[in-house]
């Protein structure tokens, strides 16, 4: 039990030190997997902190870099959006077997 807790704590501190450590590049590995709204929310936080201006120089550089990466990620997600319409194809017993393009006359 106590071992569980300690390992959990260790992982927590490791996590927090990771976000505090500001080597930029390693920090941004997780961004690619972030959903749009999470990335946007984090970018908002960073902008708010920079605008408040109460960030140490080193950290401001780090979070600025991360902000840029978040922005790029969000833009990519928005740009990637395109309508793609497919229809499920069904087997005779009603199970989904695959997809085919669906042409809805518009």
């Amino acid at each position, binding site marked *: 039990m106590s071992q569980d807790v300690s390992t959990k704590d260790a992982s927590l501190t490791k996590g927090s030190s990771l976000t505090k450590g500001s080597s930029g590049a390693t920090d941004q590995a997780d961004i690619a997997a972030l959903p749009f709204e999470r990335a946007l929310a984090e970018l908002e936080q960073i902008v708010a902190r920079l605008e408040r201006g109460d960030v140490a120089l080193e950290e401001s550089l780090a979070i600025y870099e991360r902000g840029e990466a978040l922005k790029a990620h969000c833009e990519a997600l928005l740009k990637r959006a395109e309508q793609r319409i497919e*229809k499920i194809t069904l087997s005779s017993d009603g199970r989904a077997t695959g997809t085919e393009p669906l042409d809805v006359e518009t």
Partner: protein
Amino acid sequence: MSDGVTGQNFAGEGFVTNLQEWTVSGLSGALKRTLEDAFGHVRLKGEVSGYRGPHSSGHCYFALKDESAKLEAVIWKGVFSRLKIKPQEGLEVVVTGRITTFPGSSKYQIIIETIEPAGVGALMAILEERRRKLAAEGLFDEARKQLLPFLPTVIGVVTSPTGAVIRDILHRLEDRFPSHVLVWPVRVQGETSAAEVTAAIRGFNALPGAGAIPRPDVIIVARGGGSLEDLWSFNDEAVVRAAADSDIPLVSAVGHETDWTLIDYAADLRCPTPTGAAEKVVPVRRDLALRLADLGRRHGEAMARLGERRRTGLRSLVRALRRPEDLVAAPRQRLDLVAGKLAHGLAINARRHEIALSALSRRLARLSPHLQLEQSRARLARAGQQLDRCFAANSHRYARDFMRVAGRLSPHSLRLRVARGRERLVLAGDRLGHMAPEIVARRGSALERVWKLIESLGHKGVLARGYALVLDEGRQPIRSAGAVSVGMPLTIMLSDGDVDAVAVGGAGGGKVSGEKAAGGQGSGGRGVSRKAGEAVKTAPSNQSSLFDI
């Protein structure tokens, strides 16, 4: 009508008739055909009666009735499974079907093909009852509702692949945020509709995320407006349960604004129209892009401002830093100034201390212990001389006083007192010499008197007068005849000796027999003297006064 008829015309005979003669089977078959021809497809209104669910065979047997008549009804298994609305005891229904007979038992019945509630009221009653039942199970609880994803990657749509509904949805999605849409084609009305919708919802949920078909992040179940009956599939219990069970957030958009179906209660979000669903499911891309652009601009600006502020701060700090010479000049000047005054100040200071020191040493000399000792010694010498003088004067005076008192002192008075005392002593000695023999003689005669009296009153005196004292074995005096038992050894004490005896009789009339023996003298003791006392009591003289002498 001539089938099965065997009659012939025999003139002159008793059985002459043109009436057809039927066999039972023939007539029954004819009736069956007649009824089926005449009532091959009827629409019948009545109340369900005696309904107890499907038989184990899967077929249903019950009756339809009105105020005055009753008709047996059958729903075959295949028909029953396709029914949108199942029969319900007491439900007013309109059925379609055909009348047929059951020749084996002379019955006719209706074989039902479709069944629907008679009027909207009946349908609403069913709907309400089902809603209440499912709500009681907790299927519609707010706590079960899931949040829709902010920006779904894949949107699943359960609806007809043709028609206005899917078109509306796709249009609105295109406007707001073009997305990947997966349509699961279903019939949205008709017998199989409910089963298809159920399968579609469960099918989307069953997709493994990593498979060839992407798993949707959100599901829209949609249908255009229609009558209550048209929308009936979406009130189906299986559909409602599938919607409630869906792990993927589910949006319902069935009918128009005012149409409510049971799937709306079970859905995570109910939208009044398919278009509304599309709006709830995705944000507007343009808005997001604007917001992102704004954020990006602010991001850059904030950073630039931060840098600029730091630069400015640094610059002003640098400016605020003065040249080292300037920093040193003023203190140096002060140092010089002060150093010049140093020697003078030192001398003044030393002088001041010197003065203070000499004052102090003067005070110290005044307080020297040698001086004080000298003074004390002189005081002591003076006091010594004074003491000598005083002593001499005192002793002289005391000597004078002594001589005066000593002259008055002589032994004459003492001698006088001694001579007087001696005279008194001689006088007293003489008186004593006269009185002593007289006192001795008086006391001697008194003693003699008493002694005589004692002798006469002692127990021996009593014994000498002829009385005897009886003792028991323990030589204790016996005072009562009751204390003597027969055969008890006794000792009789007489004045000149003891006699041992044995008691012959009991208390009261007892006699004593005994033999004389030379008993020892001086047995006496307390008991005897008491006996003597009692014996004397009988004498008229006053005993106590005698003893008191």
